[in-house]
């Protein structure tokens, strides 16, 4: 009997591609023989835009790369600029930054687990995830006046200090989350159908995973004990006690469990940050072009020369974003605008591994493996 291969275009508009991504699948019945990824449907030319904005003006655009977790984007860019210009940051500002980063990590993993389970057909987890995410977004709203696109972390500090009553609210959230994560585990982790769908699916050796450029929690599910927060400590992470969560199974379930562990670890970090939060000033220094919001208005003339220009040079700076290694490569020519900005986005590089990972699996497994890689299309296409 003669059989033919079936070409299926999964996407650009498909319920489980998390946006506009297209898989060109060559199928043998239900088995994937070849997977080619077509992207770029959300390409907005952020890197080109960066060449046309000043250093300050580009910060809000970084929010829109990975819109699920915008604080790490802010921070990665700002860290690169600070390294380039050698700016000192007040300690309190660094603590607030770490607070936002870890809170955003929890938010990101909630969305990731929720959408993963939604792709597998369990519609409930995403609602629970969004319920807790809503509380976190309210905290972000309190902190910086926006719920998803923050523009909060600026070169030299943060936009504003924490408002009154933020820490009690945060403590409430942390205490609540402890119980909620147990709930998620009860609902999801032990579920036999879930394990049947995730275990031994999307297996890739650690060697391959590194070679394919996987980073972050996805890589740590492959038994690579690596975390940029530990290996190249930045901000105040050296002062905090935490561990890089790691699993050795190399399959989708391990990648999922790393996320659950990381949420617990982030809560642990948040507790320490709240305890160790120093007093002092957190706003960006006025000389970097941004005046603090509060304070009496002063004469106009003193504001004009405050356009921030870093010295000429190149820097590649990276952080451990919730999705993996997020890096900004900035070339400065000493003018007010960057000469070139290159964004090394974690989603883009993690996605490289998918075609190899899903060869010989079925469409449902592709969805499971793709969900655990955790990509955001705004980050892939930039």
């Amino acid at each position, binding site marked *: 009997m003669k059989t033919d291969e079936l070409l299926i275009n999964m996407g650009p508009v498909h319920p489980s591609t998390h946006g506009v991504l297209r898989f060109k699948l060559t199928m043998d019945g239900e088995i994937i023989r070849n997977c080619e990824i077509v992207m770029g449907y959300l390409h907005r030319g952020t890197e080109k835009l960066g060449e046309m904005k000043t250093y300050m003006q580009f910060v809000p655009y970084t929010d829109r790369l990975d819109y699920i977790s915008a604080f790490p984007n802010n921070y990665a860019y700002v860290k690169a600029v600070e390294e380039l210009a050698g700016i000192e940051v007040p300690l309190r500002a660094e603590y607030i930054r770490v607070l936002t980063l870890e809170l955003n990590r929890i938010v990101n993993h909630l969305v990731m687990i929720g959408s993963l389970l939604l792709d597998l057909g369990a519609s409930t987890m995403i609602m629970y995830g969004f319920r807790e995410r809503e509380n976190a977004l309210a905290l972000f709203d309190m902190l910086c006046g*926006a719920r998803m696109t923050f523009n909060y972390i600026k070169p030299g500090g943060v936009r504003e200090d924490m408002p009154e009553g933020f820490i009690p609210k945060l403590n409430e959230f942390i205490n609540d989350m402890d119980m909620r994560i147990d709930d998620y585990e009860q*609902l999801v982790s032990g579920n036999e159908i879930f394990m049947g769908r995730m275990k031994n699916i999307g297996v890739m050796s650690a060697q391959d995973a590194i070679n394919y450029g996987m980073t972050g929690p996805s890589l740590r599910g492959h038994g690579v004990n690596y975390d940029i927060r530990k290996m190249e400590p930045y901000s105040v992470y050296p002062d905090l006690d935490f561990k890089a969560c790691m699993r050795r199974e190399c399959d989708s379930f391990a990648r999922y469990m790393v996320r659950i562990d990381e949420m617990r670890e982030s809560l642990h970090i948040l507790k320490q940050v709240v305890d160790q939060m120093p007093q002092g000033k957190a706003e960006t220094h006025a000389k970097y072009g941004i*005046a603090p919001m509060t304070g009496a208005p002063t004469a*106009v003339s003193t504001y004009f020369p405050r356009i921030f220009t870093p010295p000429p040079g190149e820097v590649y700076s990276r952080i451990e974003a919730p999705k993996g290694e997020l890096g900004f490569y900035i070339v400065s020519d000493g003018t007010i605008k960057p000469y070139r900005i290159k964004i090394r986005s974690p989603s883009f590089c993690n996605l490289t591994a998918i075609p190899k990972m899903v060869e010989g699996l079925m469409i449902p497994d592709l969805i499971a493996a793709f969900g655990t890689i955790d990509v955001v299309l705004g980050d892939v296409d930039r």
Partner: protein
Amino acid sequence: MTWISKNWTMVGIIKGLILTMKHILRIGNRPTVTVQYPYQKMKVSPRYRGLHAVDENACIGCGICEVNCPNATIQIVKYKAKWYPQVNIGMCLFCGLCVDVCPMNAMKMTGNYELADYTRESLVYGPDRLLFNKEVKQ
């Protein structure tokens, strides 16, 4: 095959069923959290970055906000014999840079987030809709 023969008791599924039943019966701090939007509104924080507002007395029309806007949203226009910013909400990122750079602290952002409208022209908020008069407290 292995997945079912190892876990034939289906304890995990039963645990999950118990958890969802707890939610159905609202046991132990698992309340309904929906905010029914048009009837109920969420409270936004005092720092919320919504529609702009410009202090009529403080604004000097210097144009720093115009220069600093990343998306060329703001234009300085003449109104009542003075110069004031005009904001095109359709292009606005709500990043708050204009508020940050205002030397006179005249620019504010309010908690108004219901900005949908029928035409593109009505998204351009001229000074007549942005200005507010701050009472002089003395």
